[in-house]
């Protein structure tokens, strides 16, 4: 991954900072510069998510792109944060069979990948059982 493309959103990735529209009260992660509900009437501000939520659905990645090949198998999930927004993230667990739909999770700061080409180590948010 290229340097600027990664560093641009590092604060958001590291600290689970998304956005909130103060007009309609909707939370967004990933962050959005425009509220799809209010558009020009929206008032977007940064918002740091509490980082707690539950698993909506999940899978176990067993065949990955080269960059993630050494990490397989690993669990990925769509997580609904308690603020109501959903995101996609890896879930860390000692046993991949313990993960279930509805499981409570909380965010944690971890290494995501070591990029082979540019040598940049990418950090971000993963989730663990609450």
């Amino acid at each position, binding site marked *: 991954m290229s340097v600027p493309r990664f560093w641009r959103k590092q604060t958001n990735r590291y600290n689970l900072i998304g956005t909130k529209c103060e007009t309609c009260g909707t939370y967004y992660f*990933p962050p959005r510069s425009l509220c799809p509900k209010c558009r020009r009437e929206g008032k977007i501000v940064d918002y740091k998510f509490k980082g707690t939520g539950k698993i909506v659905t999940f899978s176990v990645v067993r065949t990955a792109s080269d960059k993630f090949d050494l990490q397989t198998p690993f669990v990925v999930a769509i997580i609904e944060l308690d603020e109501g927004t959903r995101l996609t993230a890896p879930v860390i667990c000692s046993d991949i069979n313990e993960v279930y739909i509805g499981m409570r999770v909380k965010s944690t700061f971890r290494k995501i990948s070591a990029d082979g080409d540019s040598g940049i180590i990418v950090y971000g948010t993963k989730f663990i059982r609450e």
Partner: protein
Amino acid sequence: MRDVAVVGVGLTKFGERWGDSFREMCVEAGVKAIDDAGMDGDDIQEMFVGNMSGGRFVLQEHIGALIADYSGLATNHIPATRTEAACASGGLAFRQAVNCIASGAQDIVIAAGVEKMTDVSGGETTDALAGAADREWEGMYGVTFPSLYAMMARDYMNRYGMTREELAQVAVKNHYNGARNPIAQYQKEITIDTVLNSTLVADPLRLMDCSPVTDGAAAVILCSLDRAKEFTDCPVKVLASTQASDTISLHDRRDISTLDATVAAANRAFDIAKIERKDVDLVEVHDCFTIAEICAIEDMGFCKKGEAGKLTAEGYTALDGKLPVNTSGGLKACGHPVGATGIKQVCEVVTQLRGEAGKRQVDGAEIGMTHNVGGTGATVVTSIFRRV
């Protein structure tokens, strides 16, 4: 808006085409389509080419001009446009070609689709395909394309109680059809056990739930309906071609296992075509994964949500069923050269409506439909066709 007809179709063999280049495959399909229409290259007034990722797969952009050139049309200086919406790139090319004629801008237009996927490594292919989803907020975390559809499958099975065996039957049926299609990548029947015993790719999806990596190209010639008889005895009329978008990320959808873009595109297509679901004799749907076919049948309105698995198991969608689905073998068995798929679907429906589908012919087919998806559902194109 004028009526539009398909008057020629052309397909390459789908598969791992080690000896053939990107441009050669697309030209091969185009020449076959022009031959099929019994016309000359000089008759072609405009070209649309669907291609997902020439930039990643063969380091080539500027696809439209490249194909026009190697088709021998450069000195005619025809407009040549590449369209892209990931795996729906071919569908987009088709719809733009239809609109180009319907508007009266041109009389005769070629719509092609091509993808050359086997020139790069498997890991590179996986990464390029992840460009169909949100690179920053899905792909960044190692989420693969199969794992996104796997999350759809798990959500669906959890809510509607579809069994693993019912899901596997989609692949079994499509391999049965593919075994009757001479251009299919896999022409071999399989059993439910073949699916259930295949390697896990992204739980609960196994290798035999997934469409393969494929090289291939497809092309169709479109013409205003009033001129169609100049070129063919059996023109196929385009009753509707519609396109809809949705959030790029699966996690942002209203419902994880409903493709609202399919619902929107299909509803609009049936409105425009002025026909009912029950009038449709066969459908080519976008079964990039088995779960995708299940969702497609439901979201297009052919049955209620949660019912498609049971209907599939009962043979409702089989070649001799009430609504044959993916008579070509679908993406699963026929293969899935991503940019070509949307055009290949049109070729199959036209071939069926002409009664030229050989061992996989649906008797008396009059109305057919196609359904082409980009990514996990951020783009959908649906089209409806009638024999005239």
